[in-house]
């Protein structure tokens, strides 16, 4: 490869172009952020609005007062705290289950092509069906097992919804990992499982992290199974929120407040796992 000799002028020009691109980049990011976050902003200010300020002309873009009344009421009167706790238990447990089992299945399917195209497509096809069709049969099963209205019934039934997705995404990441790394480790004397743990997993981390993140979010927001399989002991957040939106006196302020609180676990998780998502971190440097 020939090296190009860069003149001072060239370097200066390239610097200017890069600066222009940088500015453009930031501008685009800012605009996109503004558009995507506007509805979130609307919910956020809604948390501080009073009853008559939601259907108001002209629309109120900045709250008149900043009391945290709505937050308090949402958490106590409307059962928000229970909703949060229950959703947390269910989502965390489900994410752990799906990730652990899913990683194993995804690795074997992605790397070793276990089951071939058929199994692969079968797993994918489980994503096709809307969960609503499984609601009634599973209801009868869980009723017989006396599992209705428990946490278990949710984090187990969510496996149905989340596992196929998790397996497919992680499978993609495992497929992309060069076989050479594993072979090198095997030659070095490591067992298969050790190879998997020490050399393969670290490279698949972005995939696992992003999968776990979304499995958590999907569990956190799941509505249908939560509605059908629980009654009063285990009410998750979506049920609490949906319950607030019914009937004739919709407490928009409290709903907005609770929704805001509801997104904090997701945000915390994303911030925490960022470093595994964005390029720039040195993880498991590829040797050889």
């Amino acid at each position, binding site marked *: 490869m020939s090296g190009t000799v860069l003149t001072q002028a060239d370097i200066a020009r390239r610097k200017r172009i890069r600066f222009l691109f940088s500015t453009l980049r930031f501008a685009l990011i800012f605009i996109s952020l503004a558009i995507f976050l506007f509805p979130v902003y609307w919910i956020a200010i809604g948390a501080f609005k009073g009853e*008559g300020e939601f259907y108001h002309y002209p629309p109120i873009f900045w709250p008149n007062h900043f009391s945290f009344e709505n937050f308090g009421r949402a958490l106590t009167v409307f059962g928000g705290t229970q909703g949060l706790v229950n959703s947390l238990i269910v989502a965390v*447990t489900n994410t752990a289950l799906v990730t652990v089992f899913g990683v194993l299945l995804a690795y074997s399917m992605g790397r070793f092509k276990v089951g071939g195209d058929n199994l692969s497509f079968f797993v994918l096809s489980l994503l096709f069906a809307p969960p609503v069709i499984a609601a009634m049969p599973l209801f009868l099963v869980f009723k017989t097992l006396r599992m209705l209205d428990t946490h278990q019934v949710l984090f187990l039934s969510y496996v149905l919804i989340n596992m196929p997705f998790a397996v497919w995404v992680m499978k993609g990441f495992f497929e992309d990992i060069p076989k050479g790394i594993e072979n090198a480790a095997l030659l070095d004397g490591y067992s298969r499982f050790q190879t998997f743990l020490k050399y393969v997993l670290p490279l698949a981390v972005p995939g696992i992290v992003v999968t776990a993140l979304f499995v958590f979010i999907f569990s956190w927001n799941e509505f249908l199974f939560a509605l059908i399989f629980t009654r009063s002991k285990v009410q998750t957040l979506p049920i609490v929120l949906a319950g607030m939106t019914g009937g004739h006196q919709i407490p928009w302020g409290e709903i907005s407040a609770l929704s805001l609180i509801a997104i904090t676990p997701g945000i915390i998780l994303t911030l925490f796992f960022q470093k595994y998502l964005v390029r720039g971190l040195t993880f498991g440097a590829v040797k050889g």
Partner: protein
Amino acid sequence: MQGMRKLLFVFLVLFMVGTQAAFSQASASSKVTITVYGDQGQNLQPVEWLKEEAAANGINIEVVGVPFTSVYEKLKTEFVGGTGAFDVVIFYPAYLGEFAEFKYLQPLEKLFPVHDPKMNDVVPAYRDLYCTYAGSTYALPYDGDILNFYYVKNIFTDKSEMAAFKAKYGKELAVPKTWDDLLDVAQFFTRKKGQMLAGKPLDQDFYGFAFLGARGFAYAWWANIFGGYGGAFFDKNMKPLINSKAGQDALTFQKKLMQYCPPDVMSMGYEELKNAYLQGRVATMVQWSDIWKKANDPAISKIVHNAGISQMPGVKQADGSIYYRAAAPVGRVIGIPASTKHPKEAFWVASKLSLDLSLRSVSSTQTGEDPYRISHMENPKAFEQFGTLAEAKEYLAVVKDNLNHIFPDINIPGSAEYLDALDMAVTNALSGSASVADALNSAASTWDKITANLGASNQKKIYNAMLESWKKYGFWKE
């Protein structure tokens, strides 16, 4: 990181086991536990009020609340699954026929001695058409939803408006009592921003009328007109009458009214319609009784002490009288599942809710319930927090009157399916996707299919039993 994840997982398992143990503490009390099912939020407030008295009577009340739109599917799933999880169920009367027919609910007369619910105190038409099935009482009333006609008072009494109206239409400006009158009034009051209304310039476009056009309950707003035209859902042989001349005329008329309604009327649900009225976008509209309770709250209303409520417009008959019907979508009634292990205690709870707590319930800001008992109607003082005594009296008189002209939802088995097909036809025609005739004919043939699927002879039998009540109140024209 590996180690941390393992640790996390172990911690979770412990956490889960722990919380599960905590939750499954069986309550070791000698009390009877009655589980009440209903739609979440304010409508279950009366149940909370009852808890203390119930406890004093040896009854522990547990509440299971579900989102408003999920009441049917959750309840039906539990019934079909035979879980017996609920002792008292609060649901919408449209499902009464189906639940009674399937014997999910038990007839209640034999339980009356436990705590007499005073059914004679319930507004008669509402009682007979929404609480009984095949001659037995299967439900106690809980919420008397009925549609009413609302208007903005001052524009009807303003001198300049009255003069202009008389000049244009050759008759006095008055709150319309017939649909034809409403058409004129709506046309008259539809104005652009900047034009004058009752002496003041408008700061926004103003419309003469509004209705609920959003999918789900839109059919009821058509039913008001259809009922006034003398319509009924089926004839006595279960032939659908929705596409009869009365049905088509009613829908055509509603389309005409649409030109004087806000442009977003087809997406208007409860909230949007309420706000259109309270925020001064429309001159008149039709909606549930509880709007009146909110009209005098300055935080959400611009028509404080200016909200009028009136009987549903109707059709002038040959003898000069006006025939009108008011639809009653949603509503709430209380039933006792056949599977309950404690029918007496369950009925006690239900009867308390329907009778003793009802006045407080329908006159409170904390609930969404509307009046349905004669004793409610005779207590205007209880409603004084919503308006003046005079306004309260007017409100109660109108509600009682509209209740006595009720045009009930279909409540035979399959009601959800019938009403969905009808709702689709009405909204299709109004939004212009189909002609009035095509939409209604299509719905009628869907209705025939539904009837066939559900067993035509049984449906006919059940429907005819219901018609007896219609005849009793003079709603059935042979």
